[in-house]
């Protein structure tokens, strides 16, 4: 009733507002670094990492409430804080090692973000047209297997990529048929696609390769070398750039044109306008003569092709072999990246970088802390995804007709 009560409440609201939480996140990020420094000097990374994750979570929460700058700042501060803390706890490192470490981290982040980005962009086409694609995971897996198989059988990585794309497209076509023509539940259908992909790739893998696994001389997607980068002055910058970007896979570089092209297609061409129209209001699109089915079929197939490329990169561009179920939920993380990025290419890329970084970090940490704790850190990308999804869903506005089958009159 009183003015006082009012001001108390608004003060409380301000304290829990996105901006305040974002700033808290930045503080937590800094704290995570500080914990590892004298005088606290935590010798164990668990505390700084935990504090850092809290900071990142606060940042994500703030981003989801439209406090983008402060929020992203908090995420960045938290990640830098975590890395800094790790470096500090290994304080015997020389100066150069730190540069190498950072360079390697940048490379690894991009490497892990690449398959996520391909799949997320694929998902964007499908979901912008109104078809939920939970099956991204399966389409990636199929791409990974057929990429390896194709590369092996044709003896060239280009052949592998083509066959992977065809396989991903074919699997997507099944999803499209059930989602569009049969008007089945798209989430159940996508789950089925994931099971099918697991079964088909597992079956064929055992059938073709048996106990030996994929051959060790599998043709690989080549790396792109930029040797001149190390000569960039000053020396430290040069070696940082070289370590970061000097040797990366072709697919990592292809990711950038893909981002630009998919952005242009989606937002600057008639095709994109029609895809979005179909995803927002299929009946409206239908009444002006757009074929809703044709648009949705093509969009879903494109999503399968792109997800498969992401999967093929994993098998023949990254680890150079195939193993059963090797995508390990990356399709779902890609989906989360897509949602977190607001169904936009560069937003999804930003989220993919975040998740890629956590994967890279999860794989770096065991070096420092033994494999037992390393196993625990494997959960990091999934925890981060969970936080991101919890923070952002319901705030990020999906295409209006997503998940709803369209029935012609």
């Amino acid at each position, binding site marked *: 009733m009183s003015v006082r009560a009012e001001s108390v409440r608004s003060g409380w609201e301000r304290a829990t507002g996105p901006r305040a939480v974002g700033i808290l996140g930045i503080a937590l990020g800094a704290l995570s670094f500080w914990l590892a420094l004298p005088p606290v000097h935590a010798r164990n990374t668990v505390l700084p990492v935990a504090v850092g994750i809290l900071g990142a979570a606060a940042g994500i929460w703030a981003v989801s409430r439209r406090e983008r700058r402060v929020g992203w700042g908090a995420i960045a501060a938290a990640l830098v804080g975590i890395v800094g803390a790790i470096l500090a706890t290994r304080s015997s490192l020389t100066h150069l090692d730190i540069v190498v470490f950072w360079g390697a981290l940048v490379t690894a982040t991009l490497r892990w973000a690449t398959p996520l980005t391909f799949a997320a962009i694929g998902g964007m086409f499908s979901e912008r047209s109104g078809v939920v694609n939970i099956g991204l995971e399966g389409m990636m897996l199929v791409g990974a297997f057929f990429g390896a198989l194709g590369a092996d059988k044709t003896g060239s990585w280009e052949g592998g990529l083509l066959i992977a794309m065809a396989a991903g497209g074919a699997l997507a076509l099944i999803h499209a048929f059930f989602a569009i023509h049969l008007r089945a539940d798209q989430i159940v259908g996508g789950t089925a696609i994931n099971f099918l992909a697991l079964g088909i790739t597992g079956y064929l893998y055992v059938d073709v390769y048996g106990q030996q696994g994929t051959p060790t001389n599998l043709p690989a997607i080549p790396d792109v070398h930029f040797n001149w980068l190390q000569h960039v002055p000053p020396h430290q910058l040069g070696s940082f750039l070289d370590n970061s970007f000097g040797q990366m896979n072709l697919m990592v570089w292809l990711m950038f044109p893909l981002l630009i092209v998919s952005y*242009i297609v989606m937002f*600057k*061409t*008639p095709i994109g*306008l*029609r895809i*979005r*129209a179909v995803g*927002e*209001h299929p*009946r*409206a*699109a*239908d*009444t*002006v*003569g*757009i074929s809703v089915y044709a648009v949705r079929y093509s969009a879903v197939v494109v999503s399968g092709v792109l997800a498969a490329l992401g999967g093929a990169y994993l098998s023949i561009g990254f680890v150079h072999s195939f193993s059963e179920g090797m995508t390990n939920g990356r399709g779902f993380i890609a989906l989360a990246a897509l949602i977190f990025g607001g169904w936009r290419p560069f937003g999804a890329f930003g989220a993919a970088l975040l998740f890629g970084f956590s994967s890279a970090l999860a794989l770096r940490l065991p070096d420092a802390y033994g494999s037992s704790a390393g196993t625990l850190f494997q959960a990091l990308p999934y925890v981060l995804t969970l936080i991101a999804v919890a923070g952002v869903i319901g705030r990020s506005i999906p295409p*209006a007709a997503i998940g709803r089958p369209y029935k012609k*009159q």
Partner: protein
Amino acid sequence: MSDGPILELRSITKRFPGVVANDAIDFELLPGEVHALLGENGAGKSTLMNIVYGLYRPDGGEILIRGKPVTLGSAREAIMHGIGMVHQHFMLIPVMTVAENIVLASEPTHAGVLLDYAASVERVRELSERFGLAVDPEARVENIGVGQEQRVEILKALYRGAEILILDEPTAVLTPQEAAELFEIIRGLQAQGKSIIFISHKLKEVVEIADRITVLRRGRKVDTISREGATETGLARMMVGREVLLRVEKKPAAPGQPMLEVHDLSVLDDRGLGAVRDVSFAVRAGEIVGLAGVDGNGQTELIDALAGLRRPSGGEIRVRGQDVTRASARRVLDLGVGHIPEDRQRRGLVLEFSLAENLALHDYDEEPNSRFGWLFPRRLISRARKLLREFDVRGGGPQTRASALSGGNQQKVVIAREVAGDPDVLIAAQPTRGLDVGAIEYVHRRLVEVRDEGKAVLLVSLELDEIRALSDRILVIYEGRIVGEYDPKVAEEDLGIAMTGGGSAAAA
């Protein structure tokens, strides 16, 4: 301009499972005329026009355009033949701009690849000036009003070169003033040589705008007459097949204590914007208060707040003197507020539930339906049997699924549930939407009965006729504010002015 009809339908027949929606209908449209298609809900008007627009395929009959037989298998083909349609529910994409909506599917491009948005805007501006349809090409559709949305729809058709324009119930969403503007636009289009089919069930406006009128009843054509010599009563008889009774029999109200009181209530909408602003009113026992307003002026948010479904951002709600401002929906129900929601299939019923389960939606957790969380299905069924008889629900028993019932009977189930709880306050939101004449009469009679039992009724409706026929007092809501209170005998024009924010808040 040739003399023959620009569009001719010969013996068009369309069947749906269980009904013949169009039975051998003949229809012709002359160049430059406004031809009204008149009929009740379900008479087959929209079906016929959806056939002309290529959305349905007829089971029999012929369509001729400028004397040549054509097949219209899709909207695209209809558009190619110069047919444009403005649907009753607008086919616009809210998150896109006006220009994007208009050029969709035939977009101006740079070299056939990239969208030429500037050219789109320019073409839309040009068209809007030529036909006198003022719109802002760069505004997002979600930010413009209903009247403008309709203009965008008309422009969409014109952009595609429509010579024949079908307007499906175009005034349903408009205020009387906006409707008058629309008529100006239609006359302008007619002057530029366009032929227009005007679908409506409102006699008055048909007589006002049409050159000729074709009346449909239950899927059959009754007759085509010209405006000269058409009278409202004559048309009404043709439309319904008997004399229509537009009046509701009721005794004068005997209002008692205030049952529902609202003070300075403010409510936000889903986007966090103010939808209801500082609203105060009271509904007393034994009266029906009608809330009139154009759709989207805060009615939904107001009802949600009253029913405990949405937290108000300020103000106070009292039921029988008890503060329920922050009460849950369940508590509001328990305090004696019945609520007939505006969309019975989405909000009023669980279609997959049996009628017995639907009738128990409010009190399944009370004795005798259940005890300590244990449900007694037999008791639900026996009570349902009684209620279904009492409320004359036909087409199923207690264990029939709600989805199997007709719309009218579904609404009876909702009313039975809400009234059976013996509420002190009944909120009825658009209780007759989409019902046929018989069901409407039933609902109206029930609402008056509830009033006569000494309960407070708040009626929210977009139909001015309904509001005026049932209410003892009328409140008008505009942009979230109550802008006036009127006697039910008030002229429709005065209500219309208030509904568009015109006139002063000076009220009785």
